[in-house]
């Protein structure tokens, strides 16, 4: 009876919660590495080009977010019958629209409407 209950329990929650010790340790190791490298790059100025550094640390952040999703939040396409993944994809689309849209529009607004801003920024 208890075995049946356990199976039922696992079935109800899909892959939403339970992980293994190995999974947590792999996730932790990966996130330490993925955190340490960007900090090291910015603190030591390992790459002279600021734009390249920015792109690289953003890439590291995206990879680390995926690592956390997989190893800590246990996201799989199958969890909750796929609804978790669907909600996540929808949220990611909204976040990308909000972030890229805001930055794009406001960057051009600044660049085209306020010619004095860049000079002001350089003031001490």
């Amino acid at each position, binding site marked *: 009876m208890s075995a049946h209950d356990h199976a039922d329990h696992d079935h109800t929650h899909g892959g939403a919660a339970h992980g293994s010790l190995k999974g947590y*340790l792999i996730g932790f190791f990966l996130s330490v590495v993925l955190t340490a490298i960007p900090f090291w790059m910015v603190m030591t100025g390992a790459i002279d080009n600021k734009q390249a550094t920015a792109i690289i640390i953003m890439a590291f952040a995206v990879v680390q977010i995926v690592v956390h999703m997989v190893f800590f939040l246990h996201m799989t396409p199958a969890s909750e019958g796929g609804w978790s993944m669907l909600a996540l994809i929808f949220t990611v689309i909204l976040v990308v629209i909000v972030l890229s849209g805001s930055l794009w529009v406001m960057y051009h607004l600044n660049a085209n409407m306020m010619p004095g801003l860049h000079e002001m920024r350089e003031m001490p």
Partner: protein
Amino acid sequence: MASTAIAAGAEPVFHLEEEHAHAEGGSTMLGFWLYLMSDCLIFAMLFAAFGVLGGNYAAGPAPKDLFDLGLVAVNTTMLLLSSITYGFAMLTMDKGRVGATQAWLGVTMLFGLAFLSIELYEFAHMIHEGATPQRSAFLSSFFTLVGTHGLHVTFGIVWMVTLMVQVARYGLIEANRRRLMCLSMFWHFLDVVWIGVFTFVYLMGMLR
């Protein structure tokens, strides 16, 4: 309306099947995940505001004058360690070991408190130097974004204490397991948001 023709005695059969399909708390995890996604949108708005306003210093202090990356690295370590210790709490919970679960929750809470203390120290230091939220649009959006994350961590710790009391009183019953799993998602989600914060606010701020 053919069912009206069936005797009233047939009705409990429908009832039983219906009860079986809706196990208590069966949809809680999905519901909580949807809450986290809406919380994610709040943070997206704050990140967008910071992205737009983050360069407007109003001739005030810039990230380079204010941020201490060593401190932020320590802070990040605290949150990462609290994530793995919460993972250990979940693993011991699966094995039904109340004492070990409580101990790991306690360790997680201490790391969370360490994170909050360091963040409050950083804020106090900045405000002491005159970098208050009113100083510039950069600082307003900085304090709103990082402060909202800190507030989430604060409520996560309050929740954790509540659950530790619950587990102490009632043990690892099904309801408490479900609650601990929700807090697990909440806590790991906050760590995911912090990845965005240290990358976009602190590291990119130092590159500006």
